[in-house]
């Protein structure tokens, strides 16, 4: 077992020559390093932080922002080994088929391949996030002991399922740094280098390939890495930043010849208390409002999702609506429930009301973007500036999904829904800290920063990994999906580099 290298201990001027340099030790970087560990390739895994949180490192993430209120840029991500899995909630769900499709009603939509292309990688991704056997929408069949799901009439919304990272014991989700530290140390050709900040991706004079990476430490050391292939896996914000600051040859930034790097930034808004769901028959099964550990099985939670068919027919965006907590109805709400239940001929004397929250999808927007600010970090790199936007239409689309859920509950005579005013949604807004879309994939260089393999258009040996590649986002939490995408990249690299 080899200990991790600490960049601060290397002499300035050192030149490292791995076959592959992976910039970033988060879920994408670690998954990629592990996937390539059994090849003859020498891998250098460059992590800017250490093994644990360090305020000085974290400060490098600070930046400016404008527009819709959003989490501070140094608060929604973590700069040490394991990256943002060090604070994730472990929510896992594959993207839906329609998330990959180009939709004529949705500008800039569609991945360069269908979901079937990722299918071979999902099982291994599931294993890496330790979410147990692949159940998801097959979960309902095994839930008899917990009570059947809320009956819903036929329609555009169905009960879907999350699974959660780390089913072993009752511990927190899988923190990739801590969990895979041992495996990384055991991999003879993988060298993790901690405290090494890439400060520039230096291109050849014609801009067509990466010649070297400049690396610096907060203690003032500088050295060079000359890999055959570089993979940028530093997260949805930092991937864009490192391309933009690498502007010595391509003046707009590496890979930014079409002014796309940093554009289309997205996250999943999580408005709370968007609606009230009333179950006429009384309390819902536990798996609606809480994560439920199945006997010797995965941890699951039910969610309401629009079907792909409904999304195609009505053009609503992806959303995953979850039951939050029980609520008391006021006099008018009680009157609504009593009157409706009587009209339907059902007994609502034990009715129970719950607030609903939601993880929503934003539509792609090129003006929701990251650029460089004039302020610089401790290593002299320009900090990021985020222009955050959210359109009214994003809420309106979700409203249509809630209305359909309400219709289906009425149809089955099992319950009803109240949609709360949109102003309340904004008041109670969280974000998923899912940084998406800033180096989007597209086969056409004018519409994407990278191609379907993740290679930066126009640069032969530079790839990007992670959720910054997602051209459209879905509502599913990205970690499982970005790992599947990274494992696809690993297969490509095995062919390209060997």
């Amino acid at each position, binding site marked *: 077992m080899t200990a991790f290298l600490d960049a601060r201990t290397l002499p300035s001027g050192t030149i490292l020559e791995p076959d592959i340099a992976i910039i970033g030790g988060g879920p994408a970087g670690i998954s990629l390093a592990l996937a390539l560990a059994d090849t003859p390739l020498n891998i250098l895994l460059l992590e800017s932080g250490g093994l644990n949180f360090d305020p000085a490192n974290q400060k490098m993430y600070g930046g400016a922002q404008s527009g819709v209120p959003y989490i501070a840029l140094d608060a929604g991500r973590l700069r040490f080994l394991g990256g943002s899995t060090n604070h994730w909630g472990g929510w896992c769900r594959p993207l839906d088929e329609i998330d990959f499709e180009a939709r004529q009603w949705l500008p800039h939509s569609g991945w360069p391949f269908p979901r079937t292309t990722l299918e071979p990688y999902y099982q291994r991704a599931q294993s890496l996030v330790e979410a147990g056997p692949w159940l998801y929408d097959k979960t309902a069949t095994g839930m008899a002991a917990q009570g059947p799901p809320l009956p819903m*009439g036929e329609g555009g919304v169905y009960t879907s399922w999350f699974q959660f990272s780390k089913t072993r014991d009752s511990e927190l989700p899988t923190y990739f740094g801590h969990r895979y530290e041992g495996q990384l140390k055991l991999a003879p050709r993988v060298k993790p280098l901690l405290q090494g900040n890439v400060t520039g991706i230096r291109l050849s004079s014609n801009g067509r390939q990466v010649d070297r990476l400049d690396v610096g430490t907060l203690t003032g050391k500088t050295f060079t890495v000359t890999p055959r292939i570089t993979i940028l896996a530093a997260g949805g914000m930092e991937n864009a930043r490192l391309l933009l600051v690498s502007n010595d040859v391509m003046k707009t930034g590496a890979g930014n010849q079409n002014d796309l790097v940093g554009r289309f930034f997205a996250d999943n808004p999580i408005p709370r208390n968007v*609606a*009230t769901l009333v179950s006429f028959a009384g309390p819902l099964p536990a798996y609606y409002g809480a994560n439920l550990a199945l006997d010797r099985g995965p941890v699951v939670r039910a969610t309401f999702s629009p079907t792909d068919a409904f999304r195609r027919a009505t053009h609503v965006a992806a959303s995953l609506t979850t039951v939050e907590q029980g609520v008391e109805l006021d*006099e*008018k*709400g*009680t*009157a*609504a429930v*009593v*009157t*409706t239940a*009587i*009209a*339907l*001929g059902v007994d609502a004397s034990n009715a129970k009301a719950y607030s609903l929250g939601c993880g929503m999808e934003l539509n792609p927007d090129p003006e929701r973007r990251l650029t460089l600010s004039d302020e610089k970090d401790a290593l002299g790199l320009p900090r990021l500036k985020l222009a955050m936007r959210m359109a009214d239409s994003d809420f309106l689309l979700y409203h249509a999904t*809630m*209305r359909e859920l*309400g*219709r289906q509950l*009425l*149809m089955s005579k099992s319950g*009803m*829904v*109240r*949609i*709360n*005013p949109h102003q309340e949604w904004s008041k109670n807004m969280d974000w998923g800290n899912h940084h998406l879309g800033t180096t989007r994939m597209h086969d056409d260089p004018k519409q994407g920063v990278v191609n379907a393999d993740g290679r930066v258009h126009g640069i032969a040996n530079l790839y990007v990994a992670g959720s910054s590649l997602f051209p459209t986002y879905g509502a599913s939490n990205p970690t499982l999906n970005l790992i599947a995408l990274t494992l696809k990249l690993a297969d490509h690299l095995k062919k390209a580099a060997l």
Partner: protein
Amino acid sequence: MKRRTVLGGVAAVGAVVAAGLYRFTDLFVKHYPPTPYDGVLAALTDRDEAAKFGALMRDAGTPESLAAKLRAIGNPNALARAAQSDIAAGRLSEVDGWIVPECVALLSALAAKV
């Protein structure tokens, strides 16, 4: 005592007893002043709750216009059928955010206006 006086007294006592019984049954079945829309309102088994809900729809229209839209509904069974028909056809109303069959919204609005 004259026979006419006796009969009058019996009638008066009878009226008082009848009125008392009427009020007593009010504990079980609420009585409302007659309206021109009682044929429609008969579909509601809890008119007070419907009226509370219907009060949220101030601009629902006149009682006449509401009753006209509801004339096929005259009993709870017909209301249940109409509600299911509305749901299946997607004829839903949003009342203070509550998603309800259109006929339930209209009937509640009518109950609030009479």
